[in-house]
């Protein structure tokens, strides 16, 4: 198989990852972002599994002869990446679940799930918080008190 096609899989996985990444960055909608994050991770899975393929290989499951002994009919594809990706898939669905839970809460409290609108609200909150906590510069503050004191 020629070199170009030889790493075709790797290119596709990059493509998938990048589609996902683009979605994460470019889409203001949080649900979209969560889904895109999923795509992004699937790209990596594809990379790992492609890594496991071996020419003329078959699934890494041994044939069991009647008496229970096992017969090798290799070459087998590499089981190690499969195992790792099983874990990774579980992780990605867990992350998705938590993300969705957060999004529902956000909808509940903010009333929207569009990133830009959320940013605007948060900025407003932050500014309010800042002014609430602001002291007039320690020095002047005392002066104000003194003046108040004098007028009283």
């Amino acid at each position: 198989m020629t070199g170009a096609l030889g790493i075709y899989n790797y290119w596709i996985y990059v493509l998938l990852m990048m589609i996902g990444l683009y979605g994460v960055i470019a889409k203001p909608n949080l649900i979209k972002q969560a889904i895109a994050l999923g795509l992004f991770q699937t790209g990596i899975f594809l990379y790992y599994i492609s890594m496991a393929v071996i020419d003329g290989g078959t699934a890494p499951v041994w044939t069991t002869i009647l008496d229970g002994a096992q017969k090798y009919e290799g070459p087998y594809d590499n089981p190690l990446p499969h195992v790792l990706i099983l874990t990774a898939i579980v992780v990605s669905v867990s992350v998705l679940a938590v993300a969705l839970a957060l999004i529902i809460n956000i909808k509940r409290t903010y009333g929207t799930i569009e990133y830009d609108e959320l940013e605007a609200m948060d900025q407003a909150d932050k500014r309010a918080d800042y002014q609430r906590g602001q002291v007039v510069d320690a020095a002047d503050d005392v002066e104000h008190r003194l003046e108040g004191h004098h007028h009283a």
Partner: protein
Amino acid sequence: MLDAFEVVPNLPVLVVTTPLIGGILTIAMGRGKGPWAWATLITGLVFYFTVLLMQQVLAAKTGYISYELGNWPRQWGIEYRVDALNAFILLTVAGVSFVTTLYAQKSVEKEIPQDRHNFFYAVWVLAVCGLLGITVTGDAFNVYVLLEISSLTVYALIAMGKDMNRQALTASLRYLILGSVGASFILLGIGYLMMVTGTLNMEDMHDRLAALPDIVHHRTVLVAFAFLLVGLGMKMALFPLHMWLPKAYTYAPSAVSALLSATATKVGIYMAFRFLFTIFGVGFSFVAMPASVVLSVAACAGILVTGVTAVRQTNLKRMLAYSSVGQLGYIVAGFALANVHGVAGSVIHIFNHAVMKGGMFMAAGAIMYRLGRCDLRAIRGLGKRMPLTMAAFVAGGLGLVGFPLTAGFISKWYLVQGALEAPHMWPVAAVVLVGSLLAVAYTWRVVEAAYFQEPEGESALVTEAPLSMVAPMWILIGASVYFGVSATFTGEISMRAAKSLLGGAP
């Protein structure tokens, strides 16, 4: 059945499985103080184990302890490997989590709905479990799995601040997205390395990489290096990639902020140590690759920028959050020097900053507990009303500044020494010193407000925070002072860790 069982040989795995099992059992602890008491018990036990482990490591002839899970040879199974470095980090993380758990009870009671304390503490203990797991393992993929455990738990913990302030939700989600991208980059980097080396064991990987002909021009390795660097940078909030941190630490529940600031990012930095020094090797990372320049530039920029930002904050927690990013800059700048004193400085600062900043966040939390807010206006005149809390805060602040006889000074000493020893790295020394001036600036705003201004409104009526908050706070602050006056222990450990990282005798 128990006769064949000994604790000591199994310490490395006990450190992780105790909080795992304990954390799951927490949900069965019902309502009231049960979950908290159980969590305290578990974290305390883990702390005890880490102490034993540290003794074992110091006693070990080879300088490290190796534990093969499932009794499979380390090249095929998963290996736990503990040397001076991660024994020290384990001790720090476990110790701080224990004290923080002690502290958590009151503030959690106030900030988290009563009916889900058992779940909250379960997640809390699992977070500790994940962090410890990352620190103890010697297997590249195991790092990723535990990284995800700690991340998931941390997202949830941060989001629990939602009842105090809704921004906790957006903060948590932003961290979730950025964190997942970062973790995926790490996963990808591990995949590239696995493709090249065919193994997942860190030592094994290092040997295979060392054996690669012309590794400097091996494109796969280079890209793996770059992506691991970016992914780790996100996890440890290295300066340009720190956007998630300030908001998260500001709006998380107070106890959670204390826990995270002291442990989470520290473990991220530990991972950087493992990948850069143990897997790639100092020669590749810092001599063949420009990691030194990249990291130290990012770190120095971080120290300055976040320092200035911190001075402009009015909310104490936000101020502390920004200062945390700056302090992480110190740590990174330290190991970017890649010489003994620099690395030792960053190792010791991991510990010092953990205790100082943990204590300060606890103080901020205590103010939150009494006043429901912690900003410059609220703390006016608190020096008289809450003397212990404010004293703790100021003592911690002096530590951040690096006044002599505080822990911060020790770190600064090592870092500057390392910077002067490294060729052409003196600007780092300058930045470290200027950074401590910025720390003076933001600490002193608090001092002036708390000690030289009159309280107003409710601030005039508050009383000192409950003992269950003040005592843990002072345990950490006390530690930061003690290890500032007599840092021979921490100093020697970190020197030893640095030497073994740099490939000398462990």
